[in-house]
């Protein structure tokens, strides 16, 4: 063999090991800085498992994950062990020039390692299929029908009547105490998914489930949040790239007990009959017109007098797309000082904005981060 190497294998190996050790130690220090090593290690091991599922369907998927994980872990340990053992055991000894036995194959071994993996994957397929038939079913009479409407970059949730034909109430705000998808624990909910524009995906990690929201197609699935999860909130977000605001397309799922849910929904259905809030007192300023059209504000600069409350007459010309107007200090990422009600177009609403000190503000649509303008208060 012609090789330029003067350094023996041991020297090289030491060198490589030193680099590796330095890196691993350095990294560990970097990550664990401030927390303790054992806890980080535990978290890393438990992280190989999905979160505890909060729906009956999710629990089934988690059980299936367990089986797939155990089989994969066993194969991993066996094969990786075999690789490492082979490499360590059959290294060429210095000066050993004998030729190893030239084995070209072994029929029995080859049949075994074809047939056994085939049986394993068929087993995995069968149990996956069985679970699929349990978690992806549709009942004729779900106990609650909800429709999630996804649009760039906003979720809204329509609560439907028992026959699924009438919208009883629409939850426009996808997150927060008063927003989010409120669901009854212990009842089967059928969720229909419709998109207003591009493909989105409804994903709640603790459901261990997601389904795409495809324009031109109505998808649906059913879930039942376990009784014991009543009172809990679960994060959800869009899982299919949908444009510049993909990452902000968040929502929350609030689980209530069945009775609480009935009360909540009844109260929400009654709201349209409530009286409007009183107009703020004090010296009144002018009324400013703002129009949203084609996911843009038509006005890029508006101005208002300092120290006087004023009105924004906001017209949303985008059919089926929700917009609002929020005012933030300085720039679009500044502190929010006002946020108007979010509503679907085509419609018009008047916001009463409290008095603001003089300065420069940005007005934005909270759903569409690309919609911004400047408000000068003087």
């Amino acid at each position: 063999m012609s090789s330029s190497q003067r350094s023996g294998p041991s020297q090289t190996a030491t060198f490589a090991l030193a680099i590796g050790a330095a890196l691993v130690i350095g990294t560990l220090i970097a990550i664990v800085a401030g927390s303790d090593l054992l806890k980080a290690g535990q978290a890393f091991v438990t992280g190989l498992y999905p979160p505890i599922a909060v729906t009956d369907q999710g629990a089934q998927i988690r059980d299936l994950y367990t089986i797939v994980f155990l089989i994969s872990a066993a194969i991993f340990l066996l094969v990786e062990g075999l690789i490492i053992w082979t490499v360590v055991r059959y290294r060429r000894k210095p000066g050993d020039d004998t030729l190893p036995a030239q084995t070209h194959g072994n029929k029995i071994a080859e049949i075994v390692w074809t047939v056994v993996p085939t049986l394993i994957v068929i087993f995995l397929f069968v149990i996956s299929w069985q679970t699929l038939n349990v978690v992806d079913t549709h009942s004729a009479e779900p106990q609650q029908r909800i429709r999630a409407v996804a649009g760039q970059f906003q979720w809204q949730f329509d609560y439907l009547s028992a026959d699924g034909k009438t919208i009883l109430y629409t939850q426009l705000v996808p997150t927060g105490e008063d927003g989010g998808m409120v669901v009854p624990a212990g009842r089967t909910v059928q969720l229909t998914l419709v998109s207003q524009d591009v493909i989105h995906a409804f994903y709640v990690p603790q459901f261990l489930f997601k389904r795409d929201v495809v324009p031109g197609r109505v998808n649906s699935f059913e879930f039942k949040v376990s009784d014991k999860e009543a009172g809990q909130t679960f994060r959800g977000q869009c899982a299919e790239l949908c444009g510049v605001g993909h990452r902000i397309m968040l929502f929350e799922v609030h689980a209530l007990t069945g009775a609480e849910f009935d009360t909540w929904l009844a109260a929400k259905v009654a709201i349209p009959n409530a009286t409007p809030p009183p107009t703020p007192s004090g010296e009144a300023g002018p009324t400013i017109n703002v129009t949203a059209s084609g996911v843009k504000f038509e006005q890029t600069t508006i101005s208002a007098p300092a120290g006087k409350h004023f009105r924004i007459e906001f017209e949303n010309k985008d059919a089926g797309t929700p917009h609002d107007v929020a005012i933030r200090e300085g720039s679009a990422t500044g502190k929010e000082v006002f946020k108007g009600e979010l509503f679907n177009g085509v419609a018009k609403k008047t916001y009463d904005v409290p008095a603001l000190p003089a300065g420069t503000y940005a007005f934005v649509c909270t759903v569409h981060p690309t919609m911004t303008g400047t408000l000068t208060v003087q």
Partner: protein
Amino acid sequence: MATTKVRRTAPAYGSTLYDWVTTTDHKKIGILYIINSFVFFFIGGLLAIGVRTELAMPGLQFVTDQTYNEMFTMHATFMIFLFVIPMLAGFGNYVVPLQIGAPDMAFPRINAMSFWMLPLAGVLLLLGFITGGTAAAGWTSYAPLSLDRPLASTGSGQDLWIVALALIGTSSILGAINFLVTIFKMRAPGMTLFRMPIMVWTMLVTSVLVLMATPVITSALIMLFIDRNYGGSFFDPARGGDSILYQNIFWFYSHPAVYIMVLPAMGMISEILPVFSRKPLFGYKAFIFATAGIGALGFSVWAHHMFTTGAVYLPFFSVMTFLISVPTGVKMFNWIATMWRGQLVLKTPLLFAIGFLSMFLIGGLNGAFSASVPVDFALHDTYWVVAHLHYVLFGGSVFGIMGGFYYWFPKMTGKMMNETVGKAHFVLMFIGFNLTFFPMHELGLAGMPRRIADYSSTAGWNDLNLLATVGGFTIAASMLPFLWNVFLSLRSGAPAGDDPWEGNTLEWATSSPPPAYNFDRLPEIRSERPLFDLRHGRTDER
């Protein structure tokens, strides 16, 4: 081995540059492919570093949402279409004619044209950065997001992307025809199909895949272009089109493309493992049938990328996806059995081949999770999938490519590479790779979706993201010893001689680098290891 140089007439314009630009020599074209691929590997790598830097901590610190979408879109586009696929085609170009004892590819001028389309396509893609934004709808460019829509932010960059991909596709198709004709018509006397090196076999199967699949994605690209520019309505549901149709056509190519990206890398390590174990490949014929099996089954699994669309017949694609792991598993055992009771010479090419085995194993196993439809409902479009695809394409293809590079560099240049620096490269890359991509399994399980520029600091993803970023920078750092090694070896590497590794196949029977038209004289070919037979005599009855 004695060789005589073929006398060459002086090139018309005398310069080295002119010589390389106008060459039709498969070896020079192969090297051009490899250099071009490395250029885009580094550009794609920089974009990946951009992505990892932004994700190191919660908060949007460095880039806008728009730039972020462009970065991961172009990262994948460069890595898939201008790095892995052409890199393997480049090695195939260099190695296949040598290994079958041919003087050149069957169509040398078409070969040159296939190559020169690639830098052109690369320039088109890069143009997006200075013409108001590149494609930003992900490398999958799902419609209707990739159609002209106000919030998709896909401007002219998306059109450049379509044109560039159509060019690269044409280049692949021409290359595939060239490989098929070369392999079927230009083998040396005695080189029967079942005496061909595995590298040649994998290029053969890959070429069939390219030929059958690439026209299909080209049709999708053309339809997308018409939808965007001429008022078509193939994929826009608002105008009577079907967005799922795009996904079906796209994945009909792009799933076989995974095998296009990994089969030749499997071929490379199937050359390296026997040579550095000093044993024949275990189960040569079984290996060929497994390769052909993967190629055939590869066309029946595309919709496993679409399990969550609600528009797929799930059991069929699930069972086919499980089954395709069987021939892959067979290969894994064949490789291990090749090393078993061998005499392993732990040089850099073998280290990378072992890296391939141990990492591709993980890429296969975590793929089984996604084949299980209900589990995929949890994992799809999360970072788990990012982990899976990188264990296959980086842990598999890139480790294979690096192994192949260290293995054939002496043949291409006549110089040996430095072993110590090569080992440092391997160790750094191996550690960096696992630090980057292993934590992504956990991020995915914890619910972090792909393709988000930022995440909440309370979601519990902070530590793992930081870890992955540290790993990303480690991979980037591993490129320093690699580049240093290339520089050092080109300048002052030890002379390689014809056959520095005691190789088995015909490329080692000529000088390093080989002369134009490759061979003066060929040894007798009576098995898949003609050079081994020459040294030690036959050991099989084939």
